[in-house]
């Protein structure tokens, strides 16, 4: 290897809390050559972000480097005095953070914030710095940069703010850019655009890149090498292609096996049981051993060292490269996973359970969930959140709703469960129009449809023990006496794989995955026929996602529940759904059998959406034209076809009239586009 630009040697970081200390990093070593790119991946809490932050010594309060060296261009950043560090930060070493909404100062103009590093590190005049800043904003693809210079962060969309953050990090043309989850907070199409931008700028400026992410899809085609972190250490380090084709560490293998993209009908994504170590104490032995299906006695007593050359790993029972070459995910942590017989498709009938016809929901602009704080009185109009949706969900079926944020998919979910009433159209459940139900009937109807929240924790009263949380639906609906209710709660906990002792605990004592299990248990308490699940996996790590996904499928098979599964994640929907509906700006643009819609999409939006997905496979063929631009506001949706402003094929007709729904090729596969 050439003389490295960055060399981290045996880095140790501790974070002291009120009454405990977390050993966040415990002997991390990395190398990065000039112009090279490295991805750091792992579950949350494994030390990825800490590694990135300690390079710039921007650790959170209580955090300090307790050992090791960070050599950047010959300077040891771990020991350098603060003024030396300040000369490097933002100058030769730039950083982009995860959340573009909070990482910009809300009360300074964009121009001032982008020019700031230049004024600190360069000898430019204010005017020169401003013109450089404007140039940089143009380079990162901010439309009308001259005008934007005087704007404040809140006037930009999330994607645009992330562009500004990138401009800020790159304005001094650093030799190394560290990007910590730069796209996690963004929508699929924006994510794709930002990643392309980073790629492009890296090439243009010839800088090195460290990309920290939990999303294997993000790094697959964007970095040269990958480091997999686990429990504050590096588990495996390899060139990107080698890592995806022949992972050696059992943790890497398990991570790959958990990806829904890599799952097939016969082999659902396999979760990794348990949780990453808390790092309050230094574990003895391999940190992954407690969750590893292959761990032996030696793994539990001796800590394996990172060994090997370009492809190194710290594992006593590495994956045999000969086995994985054929199917890298075949032998997962859970050896039984691969052997399980193909799941029988859940039983379902053609009986329509839920039927929506022409359902629309508009909010007045000055109130409702889209209102800005203190937006004031104005007759500016309405937000058209859901605009004329018709669909049918059959008993026992999984209907997936896909769309980006702002597409109205969550509003649709709220309408279906009856949290809000539609402004137009009817919702029929088992043939009955919900709006005609009396109070008493409505209360009884609640048993049929339940909602599984994105954040189950927020959906549970923090002052109630789990027992009370699960009992509440039974009490409200007057089901059973105390003893029966207790039995039912125990049953529910068994169903979702939680110990019965959980009833005496409070929701905050559970991990994210366990909370989603609790949320599912409560949704099932009333034995509903339909569960609306609103992004139930989006806050979870892949390893946990896979567990919940599997649980949902199993429960569906056992109990014949129907799901309306709302998600932005196409891979998850592909895996779970029988039928898929694609939403854009409140409209259902395409709907049909999942296989048909997701493999042969007809609508240009669906096609674009599929093309923005980065598959976790370095060899995946570059997909078609990804979506460009951003969705317009639902307060002023475009005339005719709402997608036309971003559609590569749009013609005059698209602006004039709304496209009719057609069913051109496959039965049940409907699309609303003039050009099909």
């Amino acid at each position: 290897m050439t003389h490295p630009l960055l060399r981290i040697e045996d880095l140790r970081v501790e974070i002291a809390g009120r009454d405990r200390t977390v050993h966040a990093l415990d002997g991390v070593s990395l190398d990065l050559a000039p112009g090279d790119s490295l991805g750091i991946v792992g579950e949350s809490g494994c030390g990825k972000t800490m590694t990135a932050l300690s390079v710039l010594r921007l650790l959170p309060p209580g955090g300090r480097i307790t050992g090791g060296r960070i050599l950047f261009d010959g300077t040891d950043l771990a020991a350098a005095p603060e003024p030396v560090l300040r000369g490097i930060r933002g100058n030769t070493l730039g950083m982009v953070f995860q959340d573009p909404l909070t990482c910009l100062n809300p009360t300074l103009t964009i121009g001032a914030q982008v020019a700031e590093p230049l004024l600190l590190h360069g000898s430019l005049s204010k005017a020169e710095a401003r013109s450089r800043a404007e140039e940089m904003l143009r380079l990162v693809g901010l439309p009308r940069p001259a005008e934007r210079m005087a704007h404040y962060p809140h006037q930009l969309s999330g994607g645009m703010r992330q562009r500004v953050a990138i401009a800020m990090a790159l304005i001094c043309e650093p030799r190394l850019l560290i990007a910590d989850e730069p796209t996690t907070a963004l929508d699929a199409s924006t994510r794709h655009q930002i990643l392309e931008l980073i790629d492009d700028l890296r090439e243009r400026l010839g800088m090195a890149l460290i990309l920290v992410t939990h999303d294997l899809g993000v790094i697959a085609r964007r970095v040269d090498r990958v480091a997999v972190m686990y429990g504050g250490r590096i588990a495996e380090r390899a060139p990107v292609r080698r890592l995806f084709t022949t992972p050696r560490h059992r943790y890497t293998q398990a991570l790959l096996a958990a990806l829904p993209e890599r799952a097939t009908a016969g082999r659902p994504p396999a979760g990794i049981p348990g949780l990453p170590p808390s790092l309050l104490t230094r574990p003895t032995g391999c940190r992954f051993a407690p969750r590893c299906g292959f761990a032996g006695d030696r793994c539990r007593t001796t800590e394996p060292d990172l060994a090997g050359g370009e492809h190194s790993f710290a594992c006593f029972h590495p994956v045999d490269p000969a086995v994985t070459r054929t199917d890298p995910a075949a032998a997962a942590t859970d050896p039984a996973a691969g052997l399980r017989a193909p799941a029988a498709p859940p039983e379902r009938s053609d009986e329509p359970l839920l039927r929506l016809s022409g359902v629309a929901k508009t909010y007045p602009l000055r109130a409702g969930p889209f209102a800005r704080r203190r937006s004031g009185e104005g007759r500016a109009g309405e937000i058209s959140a859901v605009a004329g949706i018709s669909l049918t969900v059959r008993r026992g079926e999984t209907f997936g709703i896909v769309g980006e944020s702002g597409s109205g998919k969550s509003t649709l979910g709220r309408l279906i469960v009856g949290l809000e009433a539609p402004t137009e159209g009817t919702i029929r459940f088992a043939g009955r129009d919900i709006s005609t139900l009396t109070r008493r009937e409505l209360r009884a109807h609640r048993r049929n449809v339940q909602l599984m929240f994105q954040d189950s924790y927020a959906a549970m009263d923090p002052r109630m023990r789990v027992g009370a949380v699960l009992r509440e639906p039974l009490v409200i609906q007057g089901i059973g006496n105390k003893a029966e209710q207790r039995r039912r709660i125990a049953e529910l906990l068994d169903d979702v794989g939680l110990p019965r002792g959980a009833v005496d605990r409070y929701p905050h004592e559970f991990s994210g995955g366990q909370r989603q299990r609790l949320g599912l248990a409560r949704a099932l308490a009333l034995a509903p026929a339909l569960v609306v699940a609103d992004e139930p996996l989006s806050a979870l790590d892949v390893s946990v996602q896979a567990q919940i996904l599997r649980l949902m499928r199993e429960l569906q098979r056992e109990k014949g529940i129907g799901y309306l599964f709302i998600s932005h994640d196409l891979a998850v929907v592909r895996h779970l759904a029988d039928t898929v509906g694609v939403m854009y700006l409140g409209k259902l643009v395409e709907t049909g059998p999942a296989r048909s819609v997701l493999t042969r999409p007809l609508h240009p939006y669906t096609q674009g959406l599929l093309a923005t997905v980065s598959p976790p496979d370095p060899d995946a063929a570059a997909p078609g034209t990804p979506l460009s631009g951003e969705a317009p506001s639902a307060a002023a949706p475009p005339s005719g076809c709402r997608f036309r402003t971003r559609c590569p094929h749009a013609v005059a007709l698209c602006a004039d009239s709304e496209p009719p729904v057609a069913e051109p090729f496959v039965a049940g596969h409907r699309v609303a586009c003039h050009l099909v």
Partner: protein
Amino acid sequence: MIPFLVKRLAQAAVVLLLVSVIVFALLHLLPGGPARAILGVQATPEALAHFNHQQGYDRSLPEQYVGYLGRLFTGDLGESYKLNQSVLSLLGERLPRTALLAGLSLALAAALAVPLGILQAVRRGRAADHVLTGVAFLAYATPVFFLGLVLILVFSQELRLLPAEAPQADSVGGILADAPALVLPVVTTALGIIAAFSRYMRSAVLDNLGEEYVRTARAKGQSGARIMARHVLRNALIPLATLLGLYLPTLFSGTLVVESMFNYPGMGLLFWNAAQASDFPVLLGVTLVVGVATVLGSLITDIAYAVLDPRIRSVP
């Protein structure tokens, strides 16, 4: 910004109307009603009846309220029957003096509280923070009149540094010229507010230091002091505008006590003397004016806040 202004102005108008309703209601709560209040305790029942009829106080309450509101708009707040002067002209004399006292106290409070709050935030958990926190708690808990008394005892009686009586000049200029006499009243009025504002500044600076934009600024290579000056202060100071508005009632209550203690010829002293003499037209006139001043003051601070905060000034 415009919708915000419209909404805020409409709110202020409604509140002003309600303030007048409250004062009108107080007028009618008086024993013997407004006639007794204006004619005094010695008035005969016949005189009261005659007055009530003449002034329209025998009409229905809503009618009377409309009349009252009409008089308010012409500036007719009644006559003080102790001072033989119209309430309006009394207020015209006194209001500027109280405004001066309140303004000086507020300026002093802001000037001291901001650096103190920053100091506490920067030295969080250390001796300076603990000491200042303790002092702030005591300052909160000390009634204004006790504080004034202690200050008079120490600085006027023992040390003989400052006079115990406020300036007696008529004009604002004359009052300002007698600066030493102004020190104790201003400090007494300001202390509790200093405590409150410094507590706010401490927590606002701490909150902002924990924000991610501060980490971004550090990642650019900014130094701690410049992050404070350029990034944190701006964000912490803007909400202080609203806080100023919220503290106006407390401030006016303070001037009431301070003016009567230091014999400062402002609205508070006028009010206090009127209370001793049951001079109801003056009492209610001052109450109304103070209420209106508070409403307008908080309206101004809210607008200032909206102008200062770009998130409200320029809604996309």
